[in-house]
């Protein structure tokens, strides 16, 4: 077993409903969905966020899409217009979950190395001089 950051195994998108952020986690490789389902329990996700999520964490399964949907209650400082957070609508809460580390078999860890990150040496096309 090796510890791997979720960013190498899944992509994700988040949104809001009031003070609840949702994070949809999608396996890059459908074959890893079951592994994610076993490792990314609501308890593990709640522990990962610590005080950033004051309420419960709920999880829903979408095996048809190779995805898990997490509801993080009390994550947005009151939500919407009340919140003082830069990310008041939880738009990038997804990326905070991609930091979580999970144990995966060695061959999976080798297979996903570098996945999910901009390849080394890649730079964006720039239109401004710098």
């Amino acid at each position, binding site marked *: 077993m090796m510890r791997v950051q979720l960013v190498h195994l899944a992509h994700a998108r988040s949104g809001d409903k009031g003070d609840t952020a949702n994070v949809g986690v999608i396996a890059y490789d459908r074959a890893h969905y079951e592994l994610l389902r076993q490792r990314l329990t609501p308890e593990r996700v709640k522990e990962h966020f610590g005080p950033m999520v004051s309420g419960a964490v709920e999880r829903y399964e979408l095996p*048809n899409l190779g995805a898990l949907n997490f509801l993080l209650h009390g994550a947005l400082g009151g*939500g919407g217009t009340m919140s003082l957070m830069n990310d008041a609508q939880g738009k990038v809460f997804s990326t905070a979950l991609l930091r979580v580390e999970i144990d995966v078999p060695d061959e999976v860890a080798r297979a996903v190395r570098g996945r999910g990150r901009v390849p080394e040496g890649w730079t964006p096309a720039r239109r401004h001089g710098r």
Partner: protein
Amino acid sequence: MSANGVVRIASGQGFWGDDLEAPVRQVERGPIDYLMMDYLAEVTMSIMQKQRARDPSAGYARDFVPLMERIFPRCVEAGIRVVTNAGGVNPEGCAAALVEAGRRAGVAGRARVGLVTGDDLMDRLDELLAAGHELRHMETDAPLATVRDRVQSANAYIGAGPIVRALGMGADVVVTGRSTDTALTYAPLMHEFGWSADDHNRIAAGVVAGHINECGAQCTGGNCMIDWWTIPDLADVGFPIVEAAPDGTFVVTKHEGTGGRVTAASVTEQIVYEMGDPATYITPDVIADFTTIRLEDDGPDRVRVQGVRGRAATDFLKVSIAYSSGWKATGTLTYAWPDAAAKALAADGILRERLERLDLAFDEIRTELVGWDSTHGALAGEPPPDLPEVQLRVGVRADDRGPVERFTREIAPLILTGPPSVTGFAGGRPHAQEIMAYWPALIRKEAVEPHLTVRVEPV
């Protein structure tokens, strides 16, 4: 409808503030049958409400009117019908301005505008409360009576029914208030294909199509995480087009030659956006089960969607209520290397001490360092020691305006009276903002639906 029985519904706006050129590209760069434009979010209704309070002719998505003036002739010539919730909290004002725009655009006598009203419950609120509709907060369960005197707007999320009626009456453009985002896509499908109200699976498929369409380019490569650096030509990103068949299956695609990317993965990212319980996606017309969706890549930039199942809707509509809930302001300053984060944190300490000495009472003071922890909180770890710069961002919230106004005058002084190497105040003093808080509730359908009206008038 195209020759092969497929109806093409293009998405032109994913929110109020989206790419103004996108709807123009949608009507000009290839054949479509409908253009849907979603302008409303939870926050948008409260912004529009504030605007209407200042100016009774405002309160709708103003960008929609000059946009229609540009594309109205093309839509009329190509037979493209437009469905939108641009009406916000003032659909009548929006429709009146649209008729004027149509005349200026030269389509007088050649187009009809449909107006859907009745979602606005504000004038009926006391009558509804008196009749026993408590409008309890969906999360806290508190009855609306606890904030009744501060309510600024109340709108029911309405379904496809009135839009289908307007299309049936020959409207070329349908303007609504708080229609659900998804209805803007599936109402035209119900109209075209004659799906009946108990055709749950097909309407649920339309809901899924609507959910994919409703955020514009967010399903065609925009804000797309998977391999984002390989997505071509986002400068000219194609917005989604749903090609729907009468049996409820559909393909998500975009115009040929546009940028972006449509794959099962890009569509999946949009499907999980703002998702609750995926097996129970509730709309006014059906409950869709998103765990039944089957996606399949069907050639370049084409994704086939099938298998969607649905069940009967509930007896309730969701209500979006905005109420005044105090004031807030956010101030920012930028600190430069060396020791940028240390300087910003020291400045925050000084600011907080001054706020205390002024005896200002806040419900919350929140400090974030943009460039370090404003999005990942404690998960960001310790600030990198050689951070080139960081932005201090401090927000406050209070019931009264006074302390918030005073706070807005406490940021600039830090430039000359706090830690060194500080800049980034060119934008001036922060503004105190009145908070319109969101109160989601449910109401029985029979309290709203008999009040929905549809009017169609010529330009």
